[in-house]
């Protein structure tokens, strides 16, 4: 922890960590210093000049965003002179900005609008200039309108910091403009349409493409939620109006490197109101799926479940509360222990259970083992972005993989080769650098040689204070050995949002069982969610409980409409070991119900009243077993094509939203 120093702001004294800048320090004292170019968590750039403050004994006004606190500093933010200067800056900015707040989409949340309102200006003292730059409207995600741009550089900096690096300035002075390379449209510039730039822009210069006339911000209701579309489980804020989603923004804490969502998380919501939705129960009659009532549907299901032995298949995107009800119903009502999960395709029990809780925001050294995250390929996109951001803020990265890894381009050290062997060499190097290991582990590493590179990795580990290792689950056991030598957090990265929750709830990821259900034959197969199964498995009766008409649902005997995550509430355990909550942002569409409601009704039809199941996830999280020396090996049978898995488990979302356009566009430019 940094030392704390005392600083007095407008007469109020607060203690803040050394190195804090004056904007952050002031906000701790409850004082807001107006700013346009500052991004919390990033170094101030002093460009807009709005945050000028006076320091007693100082020579003149200084920018708060670039000034660090010193012990005993006395700061004034609200003198007559400062108010005048701020007014001058706002006045100048207004002279280059349209004053069309009456029709502007951003009204209400535009930072410039707020400052202008607060600064006693009615009209700019200068006649307004116009550039006549055309907007970039050539994609369905993001509209960029340079006419509104106030050149604060926030979009440029967030895009750079996360490594996508699409935007930059062209020209200078009043003619400066935010552009892509060669001023091409976004979709020809390597843009991933993550929309981080939307969240960063303080004005109407970068906005969701479809926002115009979809309501002003003050008409929206905001709900904090979590995206469940991949293993990233990113925080989101969902804005709704009239029970429709109007937009989704990244919801991570301000200034956190994890404040990121990818294009799928931001724009995939189109699917909620699309014709891909299943809005009422459907049963197969004469070879065709026909609408039916919940009553009939559950009656039918109950009959089938009584007659035949049930096998249950669930994805790793189900919420904890749904899982615990499912477990209860399976045990007490359906009476089956055949429960398989898609988690077994990429992870084992140990890796999901014993992974640590980690905070990437404070890591100073990150190791990536057997993983190839990529924002462009949409494989662990938020992990890729978070790591790159963390590197931009001074952390170091070591990548260890048998394959070429995209993020290796920014790694301090890249080790290419079979991972278990390399991990072993690193362990040995650590021990040879004087880090302590027990005898057993020392013996395990006895038969290996170190290399110059693994020695360098060991040096980095030795220097580092907060180490986080992200590993593919298959290598978790090997990697965990390192934590016996030095304290570090180890996270096995799954491909679905609640994989850890599934396992912590007590479901064993049993690959053999899953295979039996998909490739063997079953009497009744009851599927929850959208597993990557394209064809109907050999089963006497197929039930699919899903929000969308997936390929599998199309071949089912009974389809039960469950709610999308946006219409659901509950919790998950993210890959970093955090329990995250989702609140219901929409009333369920049609007759869709959340999994656990459906299960409760089913139990009732089958003559049992069940209370909501409860698994104490927090307690389960704490029950991690202690690491013990294990052989350096890679667990077999957990390899999947991650990009394909992401596509398949989200095929309904992608195919019935504007993401389809993105796929086509990428094909066109040959990504």
């Amino acid at each position, binding site marked *: 922890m940094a030392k704390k120093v005392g600083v007095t702001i407008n007469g109020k004294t607060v203690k803040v960590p050394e190195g804090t800048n004056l904007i952050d320090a002031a906000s701790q004292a409850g004082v807001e210093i107006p700013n346009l170019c500052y991004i919390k968590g990033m170094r101030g750039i002093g*460009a807009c000049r709005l945050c000028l403050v006076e320091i007693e004994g100082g020579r003149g006004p200084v920018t708060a965003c670039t000034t660090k606190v010193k012990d005993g500093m006395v700061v004034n933010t609200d003198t007559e002179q400062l108010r005048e200067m701020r007014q001058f800056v706002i006045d*100048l900015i207004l002279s280059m900005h349209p004053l069309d707040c009456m029709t502007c989409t951003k009204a209400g949340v535009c930072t410039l609008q707020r400052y202008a309102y607060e600064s006693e200006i009615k009209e700019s003292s*200068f006649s307004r200039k116009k550039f006549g730059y055309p907007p970039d409207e050539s994609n369905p995600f993001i509209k960029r309108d340079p006419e509104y741009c106030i050149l604060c550089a926030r979009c440029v900096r967030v895009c750079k910091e996360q490594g996508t690096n699409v935007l930059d300035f062209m*020209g200078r*002075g*009043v003619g400066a403009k935010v552009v892509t390379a060669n001023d091409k449209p976004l979709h020809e510039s390597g843009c991933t349409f993550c929309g981080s730039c939307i969240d960063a822009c303080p004005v109407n210069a970068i906005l969701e493409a479809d926002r115009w006339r979809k309501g002003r911000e003050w008409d929206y209701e905001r709900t904090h939620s979590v995206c469940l579309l991949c293993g990233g489980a990113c925080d989101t804020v969902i804005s709704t109006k009239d029970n429709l989603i109007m937009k989704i923004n990244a919801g991570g804490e301000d200034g956190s490197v994890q404040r990121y969502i990818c294009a799928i998380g931001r724009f995939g919501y189109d699917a909620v109101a699309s014709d891909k939705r299943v809005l009422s129960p459907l049963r197969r009659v004469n070879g065709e799926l026909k609408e039916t009532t919940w009553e009939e549907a559950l009656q039918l299901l109950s009959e089938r479940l009584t007659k035949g032995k049930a096998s249950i298949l669930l994805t790793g995107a189900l919420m904890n509360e749904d899982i615990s009800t499912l477990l209860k119903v399976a045990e007490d009502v359906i009476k089956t222990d055949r429960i398989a999960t898609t988690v077994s395709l990429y992870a084992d029990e140990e890796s999901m259970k014993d992974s640590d809780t980690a905070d990437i925001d404070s890591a100073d050294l990150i190791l990536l083992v057997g993983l190839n995250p990529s924002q462009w390929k949409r494989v662990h996109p938020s992990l890729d972005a978070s790591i790159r951001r963390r590197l931009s803020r001074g952390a170091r990265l070591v990548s260890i993989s048998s394959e070429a890894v995209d993020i290796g381009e920014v790694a301090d050290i890249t080790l290419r080769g079979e991972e278990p062997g390399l991990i072993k060499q690193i362990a040995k190097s650590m021990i040879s650098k004087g880090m302590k290991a027990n005898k057993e582990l020392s013996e395990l590493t006895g038969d290996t040689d170190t290399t110059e590179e693994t020695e360098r990795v060991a040096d980095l580990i030795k220097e580092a204070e907060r180490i986080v290792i992200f590993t593919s689950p298959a290598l978790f056991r090997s990697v965990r050995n390192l934590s016996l030598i030095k304290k570090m957090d180890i996270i096995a990265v799954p491909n679905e949002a609640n994989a850890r929750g599934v396992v912590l709830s007590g479901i064993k990821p049993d690959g053999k069982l899953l295979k039996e259900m998909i490739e063997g034959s079953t009497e009744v197969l009851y599927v929850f969610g959208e597993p990557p199964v394209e064809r109907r498995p050999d089963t006497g009766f197929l039930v699919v409980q899903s929000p969308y008409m997936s390929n599998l649902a199309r071949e089912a005997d009974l389809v039960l409409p469950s709610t999308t995550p946006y219409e659901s509430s509950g919790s998950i355990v993210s890959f970093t070991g955090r329990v995250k909550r989702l609140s219901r942002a929409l009333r369920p569409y049609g007759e869709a119900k959340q999994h656990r409601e459906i299960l409760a009704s089913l139990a009732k039809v089958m003559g049992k009243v069940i209370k909501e199941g409860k698994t104490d996830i927090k307690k389960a999280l704490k029950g991690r077993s202690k690491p013990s020396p294990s052989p350096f090996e890679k667990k077999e049978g957990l390899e999947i094509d991650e990009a394909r898995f992401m596509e398949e488990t989200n095929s309904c979302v992608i195919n019935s939203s504007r993401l389809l356009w993105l796929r086509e566009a990428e094909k066109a430019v040959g990504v």
Partner: protein
Amino acid sequence: MERVLLKNIENPNSAEIDEYLKAGGYRNVSKAFDMRPEDIIEEVKKSGLRGRGGAGFPTGMKWGFAIADPKFPKYLICNADEGEPGTFKDRPILERNPHLLIEGMIISAYALKAEYGYIYLRAEYPKAKEILDRAIRQAYERNYLGENILGRDVRFHLTVHQGAGAYICGEETALIDSLEGKRGQPRNKPPFPVNVGAWRMPTIVNNVETLANIPYIVEIGGEAYSKIGNPECPGPKLYCVSGHVNRPGVYELPMGTTLREIIYTHAGGIRNDKELKAVIPGGVSTPVLPASMIDCRMDFVSMPKAGSMLGSAAVIVMDETVCMVKVMHRIMKFFEHESCGKCTPCREGTGWLRRILESIEKGNGRPGDIELLRDISEDMMGKTFCPLGDGAAGALRGMLKHFEYEFEEHIAGRSRCKGG
């Protein structure tokens, strides 16, 4: 005074290494190598040399900061961007005496333990590029550059990097960004380049003329050097005189020579027997002085007392026929064009100042415009990100201080040169 910086430049082959050696060149490299690096820095401190790039920062002090930083490698950059309008003092060194600069850089690099050097050269000096490239090649051939220089355990590699034609890239941090291949924009200070500069390593940026002084300091010693010119900021100084004088050009004179002497004794006085009206003493970002003030001495200490600055010692002389509104408009056009666009007050402020000045010059000025000009320049002063904005505001403030009546006349429609 014996010429130091412009020594031998009448010789048509002065840029050739053999001619330079014949005149005693590169002798100070061996002398310096016999000294300890810290002793050289001590001599530079003693000499009282202040940076010739415009700000007049004490060179020895800057070097002291740089070697105090434990990080390596260190980089030495020669600022040859020479972008300030009216400035052409570095040019004769670059084109006629390149080996003096190279010698200065070798010695400086040795003192600073820098193994790599760059000359950041303005794009508009293509001839200097050729000459420097040739001179550097010759210096490599004679082993003044490269590995094991003169058989000693010293290495120094030097390259010329051409700028892309932006005034702001003369500012040292923007220069570094540009050198790194980025769009040149000033960086935050602190950290200063001496600690975090090119590729985040300690970097010493010095002006051409500053570095060209180093061999002489090594030759005669800091003590003797400090007795040249004004003892408060000593040394030989290049003054480049342009405008309405009989003999425009670059003059090497002791620091602290008066404007009067520069204009009348060396530059041959005002052309066509006209009266002197005003002088911009140090490039367009320094405030103008009226004819009545030309007895002040041209150095870093005396000029601020007269309400201006030495800047790049680009003396722009204007006779009685000149319209100050027009001059100011032209200057502001320059600043508007060259503002990098990073910070609001400079980017938008220079734009609006230019627009208001333009309308006054065209005869469309309105009452209250002078007030507005004053307010804007007041609001910009000290609040922009880098000194470029201050320069623009300061130039205008100087103009209004001494020549406000001309602006009033223009607005009132009483000016002789209305519409001019």
